[in-house]
């Protein structure tokens, strides 16, 4: 096994932080190149006019998923060492809802607001400020909501456990969902273009 590098002790915390900055800059660059530095473009998704966000994000998920599956099969990565965030059903549903409301209202998600801010967009800076304030408020209120935060724990839940399917079957299922999604997205965008 050769990866994950950090878990296998190939580099220390300092190097890991440095690499995180490099990867973060790369991530931001590609977000910007995909046009995600514009809240107008991002908000178009919620009106089903421009589904670039959906297509880019789903493509990233599929690329990573297929990459991890086959790299593991070829023996280059030990998937058991890849950390899976534990599921806390109700708090995560509430968090997801809050995130969605923030996304619709502000037109940015946490990553894209940083991209917008550094490319000089005022709404990006305001969103970023809101996000930082939210983090501080959350931190300060944490003792009050810590019980809720760790309620309904389901452990490191994966789709193959939920559906009782093999990893490979879940991979195929998600790819099929994505392809159907891309097809639907293209149709919706074409309909919108013809209506203009």
């Amino acid at each position, binding site marked *: 096994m050769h990866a994950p590098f950090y878990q296998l002790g190939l580099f220390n915390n300092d190097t890991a932080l440095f690499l995180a900055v490099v990867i973060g800059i790369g991530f931001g660059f590609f977000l910007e190149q995909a046009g995600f530095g514009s809240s107008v473009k991002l908000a178009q998704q919620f009106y089903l006019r421009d589904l670039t966000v959906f297509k880019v994000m789903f493509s990233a998920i599929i690329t990573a998923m297929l990459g991890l*599956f086959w790299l593991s*099969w070829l023996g280059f990565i030990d998937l058991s060492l890849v950390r899976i965030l*534990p599921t806390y059903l109700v708090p995560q549903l509430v968090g997801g809802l809050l995130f969605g409301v923030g996304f619709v209202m502000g037109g940015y998600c946490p990553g894209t607001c940083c991209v917008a801010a550094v490319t000089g967009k005022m709404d990006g800076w305001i969103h970023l400020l809101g996000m930082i304030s939210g983090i501080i408020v959350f931190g300060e209120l944490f003792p009050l909501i810590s019980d809720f935060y760790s309620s309904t724990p389901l452990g*490191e839940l994966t789709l193959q456990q939920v559906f009782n399917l093999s990893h490979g079957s879940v*991979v195929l299922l*998600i790819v099929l969902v*994505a392809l159907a999604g*891309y097809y639907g997205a293209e149709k919706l965008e074409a309909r919108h273009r013809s209506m203009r």
Partner: protein
Amino acid sequence: MTLNKLLASFGLILALLAAIVGEPERDDSTLEEIALLIQSEEDHMTPLELAEQLYSGKKIRLIDIRDSVSHFEQHIFNSELMSIQQLLKNEIRKNELTVLYFEGGIHASQAWMLMKMKHYDNIYTLLGGFNGWKEIVLNPTLHAGKTEEEKKEFERRKTLSRFFGGEPIDIPEEMSKKNSIHQHQSLPKNNLPKKIRKSEDELRFQC
């Protein structure tokens, strides 16, 4: 065919093959690997090995899975109190060099087994548990009549013992003789007290 369609087809082929392959690991040899580790005694560290590595400054995460009363009464320096349930909740990083200990060896071995099933690769138990640690590291004993080599070894053990806050026991020749005569005279053979100091081989046999 456009690039998008080409990529979509490539992705679909990989996904279909994934469904045929089933699992991303080529063989599930977890149980066999665990059996091999136990068989080759690579599942544990001896108290001396642990002490020497800690003394040399090696970073080892020590987990005390005894109850809190025992922990606060006495524990290995820098060890953390943790229940087995907490251990399973990923309180430690996979691949982080970790040593588990209990009073003896059995409970820690059970926890070790669970952690191995969760693919923790760099985890060990302490041979003989905390009892073994006390006996071998904290209170090494030198009986009278030992060879020069054994005395030299005892000197090395004394350094380790003091480093970890222990008290080496050096039994003077006279006291040893007296004890020996006393034991010989007053106790029937089958009631002789156990040896004060067990060797690590004996610990291994017990666990």
